[in-house]
């Protein structure tokens, strides 16, 4: 034992290094149990990936990479191509980010840099409550409030007269890509706001003071000192918001209107990978059909993995602790 060899060698550090020396049966047992519980996380992730690959094997064998580019999704003819679902997933998420990111960043700047303390915590709390709203409730609201609103006040309004622009072409259903993008924007708004606020608050006060001392206005301080300092963290916030938007199911399924064509129009019904799964998985009647749906799930999981790696790399670049990002 080297207990006396230096001030920094503590009992706990020693125990970590040589558990078998100090350990008795209870220690060995508890270590094994906790390790087992911890490793269940890894096992779960691996099992999930394995199972999704296994269950989508019929579809992978039948369509290969063509599954990603095929534009026909036809259960009757047993032809499945995921391109419309992938397109719908990406476009609805991009619409959501375009709407939500500016508002989120503005709100985060307000919460972190401007709001007096008595206003800061109630506002933060309210925005976090928005994140806790169940997705099916937002979907219900979308179905009965947002969709009619989009139909009557967006698609039938002046934008409807711009139908020569492909973006605004199509009949005024209300259901469609635009409604999905809007509801997703509402869902990712609180997530991006909360993370962006945490990231901004982690910027050292000295950065702001230095800029103020140079005679900068408050906005110039934010633009010149705060935002550049936490650029990577803000990118990570947006990426995590994107991850949420890509996989969101219920609310999108209820307002997107189930269409399988790739069109430029925002007014046309569309579908996402998640909404296709939600509306068809229980009705899939033969192996290849189920397999194709599971492959959609596999694609979603793959995208999640990539986004997390990307967010993690960005966060590591500034050596921020990952805790801020996790919640």
């Amino acid at each position, binding site marked *: 034992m080297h207990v006396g060899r230096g001030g920094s060698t503590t009992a706990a550090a020693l125990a*970590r290094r040589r558990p078998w020396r100090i350990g008795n049966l209870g220690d060995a047992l508890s270590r094994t149990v906790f390790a087992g519980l911890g490793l269940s996380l890894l096992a779960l992730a691996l099992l999930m990936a394995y199972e999704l690959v296994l269950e989508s094997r019929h579809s992978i064998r039948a369509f290969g990479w063509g599954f990603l580019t095929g534009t026909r999704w036809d259960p009757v003819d047993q032809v499945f191509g995921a391109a419309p679902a992938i397109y719908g997933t990406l476009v609805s998420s991009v619409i959501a980010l375009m709407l939500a990111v500016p508002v989120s960043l503005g709100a985060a700047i*307000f919460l972190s840099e401007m709001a007096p303390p008595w206003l800061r915590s109630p506002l933060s709390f309210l925005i976090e409550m928005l994140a806790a*709203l169940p997705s099916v409730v937002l*979907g219900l609201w979308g179905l009965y409030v947002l969709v009619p609103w989009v139909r009557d006040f967006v698609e039938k309004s002046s934008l409807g007269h711009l139908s020569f622009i492909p973006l605004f072409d199509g009949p005024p259903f209300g259901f469609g890509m635009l409604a999905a993008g809007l509801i997703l924007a509402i869902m990712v708004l609180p997530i991006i706001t909360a993370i962006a606020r945490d990231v901004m608050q982690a910027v050292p006060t000295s950065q702001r003071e230095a800029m103020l001392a140079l005679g900068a206005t408050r906005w110039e301080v934010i633009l010149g000192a705060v935002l550049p300092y936490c650029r990577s963290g803000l990118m990570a916030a947006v990426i995590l918001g994107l991850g*949420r938007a890509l996989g969101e199911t219920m609310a999108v399924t209820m307002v997107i209107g189930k269409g399988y064509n790739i069109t430029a129009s925002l007014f046309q019904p569309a579908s996402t990978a998640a909404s296709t799964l939600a509306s068809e*998985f229980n009705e899939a009647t033969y192996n290849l059909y189920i397999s194709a749906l599971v492959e959609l799930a596999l694609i*979603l999981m793959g995208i999640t993995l990539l986004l*997390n790696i990307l967010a993690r790399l960005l966060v590591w670049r500034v050596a921020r602790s990952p805790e801020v990002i996790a919640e």
Partner: protein
Amino acid sequence: MSGFAYRRRKIASIVVLGLCASSAFVAVGVLALILGFVLLNGINYLNLDFFTHMPTPLGEPGGGVANSIVGSLLIIGVAALIGIPVGVGAGVFLSEYAGARLGNIMRFTADVLTGVPSIVVGVFVYSVVVLKMGHFSALAAGIALAIIMLPIVARSSEEMLKLVPRSQREAALALGITRWRTILSVIIPAARRGLVTGGLLAVARAGGETAPLMFTALGNRFWSLSVTGGPIDALPLRIWRYGIGPYDEWHQQAWAASFVLVLVVLAISLAARLVLTRR
């Protein structure tokens, strides 16, 4: 000249900061709009029958969603029984045992699992539990929600356990207490509030989930108290089915159910915060 330039910068600053402030109020306004609409609409259709009665046959007015409420409680119970102990255990391993490399791999895995869309979890549980059992069940639904809770509980427990001062661990070890006793009787009790908060937040998150239940619980218009016996209903599933259905009575029940679900989820989230901040 310089006074003019300064004034212009000052005005630009005020304008942009004004925009930021209004975005914060837009965000809060959207919440108020949705919450207000759900609550006002829901409370109109809420009555005692809603909690105590079964769904009526089509066309008959009245009835309630007693079976869905019980089903939800059952599913959440199963999920909490699995997800919270395993999650806390994983948190203990991360904070007390794991070395840097293994710890980082596990944290990354937990973050990926947190980000996996809940419908993917539903598909996964369908193929590993529902297909193997041969039928839908509360157990399968509970496992699906447990998988959603697990990484949340694990990460929050780890953070809370790390907040326990090092000196407390050392004091216990110096008294000759074994490590496992230290963990169980010193560290976990010291972090218990944080652990409760993490568990409650995970329950709130899982309780509102619908997508993972669609392929595991399926939904059921009849009474069921069996954990392993067959399809079971849940409140979010009932909101979904009634919401997209064609009948006005259904829509009203969907609003009432949303009212209940939102209140419960918000109350749990609020409780989680109060547990942590109360002195």
